[in-house]
């Protein structure tokens, strides 16, 4: 028997199917991948050091929102919740409801971007253009509520910045009805069209045992059957009053991840309609006094998984330590495990279905 040769092929830092730079080195034997090596620190900017030396504690929400473009409001909201627990004062119920409204609208447009990128990798470019065109309805709503399309700058320490009027509420209801009918058509396409459902079955599977071993989070874990979601494990925001339900899959391959994301979009649309119908009265911004003194740890559910902030202060304007744990950073060991045993030609499609956000990883 002759020896099988092992060839090293890079999925390099510049590639046609990647949105952000990341480098993987695969050791392949006749097209099957055996070993994986990765390099993720291409976009490192030193944000944790800047938050403790250059910016005071009430300017940090604006710094931290610029770590990532797609999950900007979850970073800003998580830090603000952590600081508010160390100051004196209470946030009103109306401000909490408005915060959940924007977080769920952000989740809708982020999942639509991931689904269109997956469809492009299957070769179905017309679906990519169509989902991107329908995403404009959500971006219009975000611009009317907060003033910007992506970097909202909506959350301040003590509440939110802008109020919502009855004209905007009417526009929210019209646009959400249009998006709901489009998402129902997408579910029909993603389950019945052969180039989107047959091609993706049994590729890149993560079993339930492996998900427990590698501590997977987000839609990656829920598609494998693991019941974990930060929205049901914390009570900073009133998610149980607006109708949140956990969506699970069974197999853990690319097809079930797509279906879990589509079902989460439908659940988010239902939550937004409930919020707008039952909005309480009150102020939107309260002044909080004091300087942060002590430790605080807060978790929140970003579109890609679980986000954690740990801050420590000593009663001065500059903080002592800000530790950020982003969802893609914690899932990299799980990514590297899924690649082993699959074909080299499937690697770009598997990477796009994880929804990696490299600006969050290398902060």
């Amino acid at each position, binding site marked *: 028997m002759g020896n099988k040769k092992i060839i090293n092929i890079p999925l390099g830092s510049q590639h046609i199917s990647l949105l952000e730079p990341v480098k993987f080195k695969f050791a392949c034997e006749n097209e099957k991948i055996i070993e994986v090596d990765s390099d993720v620190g291409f976009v490192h900017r030193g944000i944790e050091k800047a938050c403790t030396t250059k910016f005071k504690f009430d300017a940090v929400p604006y710094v931290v929102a610029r770590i990532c473009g797609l999950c900007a409001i979850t970073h800003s909201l998580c830090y603000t919740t952590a600081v508010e627990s160390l100051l004196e004062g209470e946030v009103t119920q109306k401000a909490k409801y408005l915060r959940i409204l924007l977080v769920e609208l952000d989740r809708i447009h982020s999942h639509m971007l991931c689904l269109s990128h997956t469809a492009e990798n299957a070769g179905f470019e017309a679906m990519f253009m169509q989902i991107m065109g329908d995403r404009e309805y959500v971006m219009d709503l975000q611009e009317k509520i907060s003033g910007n399309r992506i970097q909202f*700058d909506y959350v*301040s320490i003590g509440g939110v910045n802008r109020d919502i009027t009855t004209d905007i509420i009417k526009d929210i209801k019209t646009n959400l009805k249009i998006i709901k009918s489009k998402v129902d058509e997408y579910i029909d396409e993603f389950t019945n*069209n052969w180039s989107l459902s047959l091609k993706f079955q049994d590729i890149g599977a993560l079993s339930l045992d492996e998900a427990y071993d590698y501590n997977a989070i987000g839609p990656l874990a829920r598609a494998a059957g693991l019941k974990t979601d930060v929205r049901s494990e914390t009570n900073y925001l009133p998610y149980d009053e607006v109708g949140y339900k956990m969506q699970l899959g069974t197999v853990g391959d690319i097809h079930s991840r797509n279906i879990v994301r589509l079902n989460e979009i439908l659940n988010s649309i239902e939550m937004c309609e409930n919020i707008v119908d039952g909005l309480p009265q009150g102020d939107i911004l309260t002044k909080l006094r004091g300087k942060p003194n002590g430790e605080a740890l807060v978790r929140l559910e970003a579109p890609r998984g679980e986000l954690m902030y740990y801050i420590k202060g000593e009663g001065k304007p500059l903080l002592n330590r800000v530790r950020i744990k982003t969802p893609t950073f914690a899932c990299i060991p799980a990514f590297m495990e899924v690649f082993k045993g699959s074909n080299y030609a499937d690697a770009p499609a598997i990477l796009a279905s994880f929804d990696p956000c490299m600006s969050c990883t290398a902060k």
Partner: protein
Amino acid sequence: MFSSIKKAFKNLFTKPQTIDYPVSPIEKPAGHRGLIEYGEEHCIYCLKCEKACPPGSILFVHTDNPTENPKNKKSLEYKYNPHLCIYCGECVRACPKPQEALWQSEKKPMIGIKEDRVNDGWFEIEALKKSK
């Protein structure tokens, strides 16, 4: 399976969704973020807007010919950099007189072109402030 073929056929006859800006204008909704404007007669020179700005785009520097405002005891002058500003509105919320001395308008900010060297004057102002 055939619904996508029917939809592709229908899309041949509808007009495209792209707006060809700058030939045709974009409609902006009411209340979008624009330039920060300053009314000097009502200002009390408390310097709260300078402390609240996250990137540091409002600075009060010493000047030799101050205005005739009786509250201007240290001969300061207001300087604003529209290219460093992030249009968040923190300065307006920190001001004690928000609609008279400092407010956010709906005017479009100007574009920064490399040949104009827009930041050279600002570096001198920052050096002057640091040496005080």
